Every structure is written in structure tokens, then in C-alpha cells.
């Protein structure tokens, strides 16, 4: 898979969990499906390290936010499908809210222009 350093972004620390929760919230997915879904939603702009995906899934399951079940994949093979639990949904909402506030604040700070500059414009 060709990678374009300009187009893909590295994940901010701690956001992987949130993205996985979001991906799973749209419908049950197996691990590889989570990867594809995130890539698809982000329109290939976000690349997830495959090695860190599974520990994240197990951690989320350990916390009780997602639950895994064995089922059949599209190509008729046994795969483990994850779906969001009620606790996971609350968690996702909280995380999303926090993220939006954070993005808002950071955005505000970054869009601030020096007063002098405004006057001279």
C-alpha cells in the first residue's frame, strides 16, 4: 500500500480508543474491519498502526466498553466481531464531547490574530 506522508496523519495520543469506539458504534466489526472502516471514513487520510490495533481492542473489551463475539465474516470465515456496549456508548459520548471542546479551544487559540495586525489590515 503506497503511503503518502503529506496525506496521512499520525494519531494523537489517546485518540485511537475513541476512533475504535466510533467505528464500532456504526455496526459490529471484526478487527480488520475496524481498520478499513476508519480508513474509509477518514478518506485514507488516517493510517492506524496495525500492531497497536489489537491491544487497543483488548483494552476496550477489558474495560467493558466493547464486547467481542465470534461470528462469520463476508468470506465465510470465523472472525471475532466487536460491538459497542451501553457503557461504551456513554464513554464515546463523553470522549466526543471532550474532544470537541478541546478542538474548539485549540481552534480558537490558533485562529486568534494579533490586534495590531488586524488594525493594519
Amino acid at each position, binding site marked *: *500500500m503506497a503511503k503518502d506522508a503529506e496525506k496521512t496523519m499520525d494519531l494523537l495520543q489517546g485518540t485511537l480508543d475513541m476512533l475504535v469506539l466510533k467505528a464500532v458504534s456504526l455496526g459490529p466489526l*471484526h*478487527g*480488520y474491519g475496524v481498520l478499513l472502516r476508519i480508513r474509509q471514513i477518514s478518506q485514507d487520510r488516517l493510517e492506524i498502526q*496495525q*500492531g497497536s490495533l*489489537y*491491544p*487497543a481492542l*483488548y*483494552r476496550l*473489551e*477489558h*474495560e*467493558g*466498553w466493547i464486547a467481542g463475539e465470534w461470528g462469520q*465474516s463476508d*468470506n465465510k*470465515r*470465523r*472472525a*471475532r466481531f466487536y460491538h459497542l456496549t451501553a*457503557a461504551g456508548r456513554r*464513554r464515546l459520548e463523553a470522549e466526543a464531547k471532550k474532544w470537541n471542546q478541546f478542538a474548539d479551544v485549540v481552534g480558537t487559540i490558533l485562529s486568534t490574530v494579533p490586534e495590531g495586525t488586524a488594525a493594519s489590515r
Partner: protein
Amino acid sequence: MSVGSRMKTWWRAVTRGAEVDAQVDEELRFHIESYAEDLMRGGMAREEAWRQAKAELGSLAAARENSRQAWGTSGFDELRGDLRYALRMLAKSPGFALIAVGSLALGIGANTAIFSITKHVLLDQLHVPHAGQLRLFAWTSKPDSAVHSVWGDYHSTAGGVHSSSFSYPIYQELRRQNRDLSDLFAFKDAGRMDATVNGQAEVVHSELVSGNYYQQMEVQPQLGRAIGPADDKPGAQPVVVISNGYWTRRFNRSPSVIGKTILLNLQPVTIIGVNPRGFTGANSVQTSPEVFAPIAQEPLLVARIWTGSILESPQRWWVQIMARTRPGASEAAAQAQLDATLHSAVLALMKPKAGDDIPRLLITDGSHGMNEAARQFSQPLHVLLALSGLVLLLACANIANLLLARSAARQREMSVRLALGAGRARILRQMLTESLLLAACGGALGLLLGYVGQIALLRLTADPSASEAAMQTSFSWGVFAFNAALALLTGILFGVAPAWQSMRTQVHSSLKDNATTTTRRRHGYGGKAIVGFQIALSMLLVAGAGVFLRTLVNLNRVDPGFDTRNLVLFEIDPPQSRYPTGKEGALYDQIEERLAATPGVESVSAASIPLLARDNSNDDFVPAGMKPAKGENTAENDDYVGDRFFATMRIPIVAGRSLGPQDTTSSLKVAVVNEALARKYYKGGNPVGKTFTTSDEENQELLYTIVGVCANTRYSSLRDDPPPTFYLHYRQAPDVSWGMTFIARTRVARAAIAPSLRSAVQSVDRDLPLINVRTQKEQIDEITMDERLIADLTGGFGILALVLACIGIYGVMAYSVSQRTNEIGIRMALGAERARVQRMVLGEASWMAVLGVVAGLGGALALARLIASMLYGLNPYDPATFAGSALLLLGVALAASWIPARRAAGVDPMRALRHE
């Protein structure tokens, strides 16, 4: 986040690791396959696609590891790995494991057993709700106390006397005036009583209790009802509550026992209740009386020597008082107020003479009951606890030593681990895991040994006469916790030094071949210091065992002054109701006569005090013409005996005559005194024909004429020199209603003759049981039980210490020799003789031993003072014992280093150097 789900995954990962791992593997394989297919669809070659898919996911093993980290089970996995590794290491050196676990088990077992007994005797509280609230009343006074007559607990202290006995009228007065404590209640260990159940007579132990006793103890019977205030009134229907043990043993736990009437000291009493399991009354937690009766029945059940009941006598102090503290109320205030009450009650009721000291009230801890055993066993138990602690320390030192040697030998292994990237903390943990595993094995085995040892100890200490009220087993969670803590502590104690050692391993130096020579010196030093410490501890233990063994030997060598062989003893305790004062003499005559006629009996006599039984009695002895100063102690030991006492005991009569059939109730009152008394009062002159006075219970003076002098005998104990003693005939003695000990010199063994003795007594009165049938030897064994127990145990500890020291010395010297093979080879190549090499090694060992022995000697001398009062016939600084122990240890040290020395001398210089 949910704790529940975390627990679930953790538990699943821990318990079904393989299954979970397989699932993870399957999941990851699916991922790789799907990805590879996608790649191939994108036009990649099959092999290349698979390679890339695998590479991007990373290694499967790492992913699995990561997943376990996510579940928080990695710590557990590592521990499991450490444990498995530790087990493998131990299995590889079974000799080491055996020695380590074995010595630990012995050390921990000894401590567990002795701790469990100590806890039982000194720490366990009465099994009643909130035992911590219980307070026991006591008093102290100067030696010239206003209290002249005490039945029961009474002790001389440095400044006077101490007792927890009160007179009944004073108890009632204290109870009336009490404001700060909860209602006062009273009890009394009334000793043995004759119980007749379904026509069969036996002896039971009894306790008298006040009417509010059960209510204040907060104890409910498991069956029937408790004794209440209505039962504790004069004229009330006589009732008793029986113990759980007696109910089980005698009545087979039958519920129909309620309402049953039995004879207690020949009085019909009705059983109204059965105490709950574990309740032992207020005396102690060790044994339980079998019957509990209201104090108001004292005149019926107990009264014998007194004219009238002791319930009304303010002069006789006998009853114990307890109360519970009230939350918020001050104990100090209660003590002050009740002390004032006691003071005025003594003045008003007893009318003491001027100069008599009025007792001062003390409120003491009653949570253990009266607990007489604590007084008797406190010191021996503390000594044993300390010594067993030393043994455990010794075992720890031994294992630390062995581990140190092993850790030195394992330096290469540690270097390899460090080189491969193991953290130092990880290695420390690995080493500690091994130590703790050893400790846990030792602890588990020690628990088993401790349990067995504890039962054996209880069997040794149990008073044969109290065997009916068998001591309750004391193994409990407290003991288990002590055992576990001990194992953990020892594991850390002996594991830390070797672990530290291995953590400091240098990667580079150890991986080089000659590393051993550069680090040798430091290790050797540490090991030798530990061995020196071991020898010092062994010295302490061996010297301790030595002085206690010599004490026992000295006691066994004591000549008691009479022939202790072939004597069978038992007590007869005639109930006062059938044999009122004055009538007992005829009964004793009759029993003596029947016993003497029994085949196999050579000679028989009654005595009020059996010799060497820790019993004693003393009465006034005032020679005619002597005026004792006021307050002077004129009491001497006495014994009321039968016609053939001196002949039966084989005590020689040195002047005058013995007591005999001619001394009757109506003839001249006569006495025999021993030589010690003759020397004290008659200064070597012949006392025969002299008279003296003694006094009876009513303080009336009685005149006796001395008709003979007998040889000295030990009286109540083997330790005390023969005290001045006078003997009266029981027919002429002031009071013999307390019962008699019958002593028979027999031609056959006790077991063979006991039944015929029993039938002889029962031919006189079938309701009279023989109490406590034993031989004189058994009787002596019983009073020297403490000494024998301590000598046995400390002797065992001493041998254990020697064995451990032996192992330690051998281990260190053998290791040192093996490490120095090169050096020894060089020495020999340069011309050192074999004998010289051998001497060098032995010399090294003896230095270690000498330093250890000197240190141990210092410790022993410092501690000897503490046990001085437990010794007999030798000084605590006994030079012979100390010199003997020192020589023994030096000998053991040399013997243990003999084999390593021989091995050193046998080194072949060529091979040693080639090995390099």
C-alpha cells in the same frame, strides 16, 4: 469502566490462558489473511502480500504479550514463570531443597507449637461476648494483713501479699455500693466434688457462681436454662448447669438430661442447663469445670471445716469478684470508690487488730479469667519462645548461607540474563520468589509439625488429675496467621542478601571465565560472618540446653529422704454430710485397715499432705515457754498421718518412737518432729518429752507432746531444702475433714493393684471414689514437669542447633575450598605440603568457630541472669556447662570442616592448574 468486566477478562486470562491465547491467535490470523487477500486483489504477488501483512501486524508473540498486558495479567504471568523456574531450580538440587525446607520446617514448627501454647495460656480471652470488658477484683496488702484466712488464690509478692479472694459479706457490700461498673458478680472454683450419676460415683470439677453470673457473662446455655438470681437464694431448689464436655462424655448429649437429678457430694441436685461449647467458666480458658452451682448452695455442697457457712463469715476470704466496665465510666473512679467501700467494710465487719494492714482494692484485667496457669507458665513459655526464635534465626542463617553460595555459583546465569536484557529488579524478584517458595514449603510443613508438636506438648503438660476436663485444642486462625507471617518473614530474611548479591552481578566480569577469582573474597567473607553468627547462636542454645539439663539431673539426684519406689497414692474426700467433723477419723482407720489387708499391699498409711506434690499445710508451732513476738511468723509445715506412716514411707525414726495405734482420740496428744525442726527450736538437744502448742480453726490453743524425731524429708518440692516439719496423728489432729491421701507400699505394679484398692475402699463405702490414683514416681514427675519439659525442648533445640551449625560450616568450607582450587593448586605446585594445606583450611574454620563461640559466650553470660530462678543446684554462669558447650562447638566445627580440608589436601596441582 466496570470492575466486573475487568475481573471477568482477568479471570478468564488467568484461568484459561491457553484457550484465550488460541483465540487471539485465530483472530490475528484472520486479520493477516484478510489483509493479504486485499493486497493480492490490489495486484500484489501472493508471497509478497503475506510477507507484508505479517510484517505490518508485527510478531504474533508480541501481539499476544501486548494483549495480556491490556488485561493486566502480565504480573501474574511473570510470577507464574518465576515460580515454575524456581521449582525447576529446586528440583535440580534436591539436597539443598531438602536441607532448606527441612530446617525451616523444624524451626517454624517449633515456633508454631510453642506460640500456640503461649497464645492459649497467655493471650486467649474467655469465650464470652466482649471479654475485653471483664475486670477481676484483687487486693494487696503488707505482710501483716488484716486478712488471716484465705481459701484459694493467695500470693506473696515483694511488698506483701496479693490475692483475688474476698469474703462473701464484703462482696455483697461492694456490690451494693458499686456505681461505676456494671453489676458485680461472684464465682469460686470449688474444686473436686463427688458426683453420683445412675448409681456410679465419679469425680467432677465444680464452680460456684452468683445468681447474676450468666446474665453478666452474657452467656446462654445451649440447652435448658441458666442459673438465675432466684436459684441463688437460701432454701432454693438445688440446681446445676453442666458443661458441654460433661454432657457429651457422661450423658451422650441426650436432651433428656434437663430435669435429671444427680447426687453432688451426696446432695440431690437437678440439672437445669448445658453450657454452650467453648464456654469454660471464669477461671481460665484452658479447662472448664463440669458442674456450675449457685453460691447459695455452698453450705450444702462445700461446707466442711467451718462451723456454719462461709457465706456469712467476713473473716474467710475465698470468693472471686468480676464486673464489666461501662462505656464512659472511669475505671480509676470505680477503683477509688470501691477501695473506700472495701476499707470501711473491713473496718466494720472484721474489726481488725491495731497494726493490721487493711487491704487495698485493685481492679485488674479479667478478660483471661483468673488464669493461674499464666502465673505458673509465663516464664518458661517466654524462655521457650525466645529459644525457639533463636533456632528459627539459625535456620534462616543456614539457608541464607546456602543461598549465598548458590548465588555465587549462579553468577554466570545471572550475567546471561542481564546480558539478554532482564532488568535488575526483575532478577531481584526472581531470587525473592525462590526464597519465598522455600519459605512457603517450610511454613506449610512447619504448620503440620507445629500442630503435631502442640498436641504432644499439651499431652505432656496436662495434669493427669485434670485429664477429664481435657484441655481444649488451641490451634486457630491466630496461630495460622503467625505461622504464615513467620514463613514470609524468614523468606525475606534469608532471601534478601543473596538476591542483593545477584542483583549486583556485573555482566562483563562474570561472563569472563576467571570471574570467580575476582569476586571470591567478598563472598567468602559474607558466608563466614554468617557461619560465625550461627556458631554464636548455637553456643547460646547449647549452653541453655546444658544448664536446663543439669538442673533436671540435679533435681533427679536429690534425695527426698524417703523411699519413692513402689508407692501408690490416691485421695479420699469424704462428704461432710455423711462424715461430719470428728467422724472422719474412724472412716480413715477403717479404710487403712481394709487396704492393709489387700493382697499385694505391704504397708499403708493415710496422710493429709502427700509429700512432693506441691501441697502444703502449716500451723502454729510454739514450744512451751516461748512467747512469740507480735506479728512473728510461728507457722511450720505439718502433716497429719496414720499409724504406719514412717514405716510405709521408710523414713527413719532417729529418736523416741513413731506414731501408732496407741495414739487415740482420748490418749495424750503426741507429735513427731523432723531433725530440721529439732535443730531450729531445740538447738541440737533432744526434743523428746518437750511440749508445744498449735491452734485449731477457732484459734484455740492445743498442747502436744513430742514423742519422736524422724529424719528430714523434702516436703512440697524437690527444690527446697527439707523444711522444719511436725507430724500429728490424724486421730488427734485439729481438722482432717479436707480428705486424706492414702499411700500404699505395694509389691505389684499400680495397674495391677488399683482395682483391688478400689474394691477395698468401696467395701467401706460404695459412694467414695478413689481420686487421682498415681505412683509416687508419677507424682514427682508431675511436680518436675516444667523442668523436664524445658530440658527436653531446649535439649532438642540444642541438637537442632548443632546440626544446623554443622551444615553451615561444612557448606561454607566446602564452597570456599572448591572456589580456591586454583589457589591451592598453585600453593602445592610451589611446594606446600598436603598437611599444611589441610591445616590451613582447618585453621580458617577454627578461627570462625572461636570467634562465634566467644560471641555466643558473651550472649549467654548476658542472658543467664534471666533464667537464674529456673535453675537448680547450679549457678547460671556454670563454668562447666559453658566450657563443655564451647568445646563441643569447637569439636563440631572441626569435624564439619574435616572433609573439605581433606578435599583441599587432595587437590592435584596439575589438574587444578590445567582447569584454569
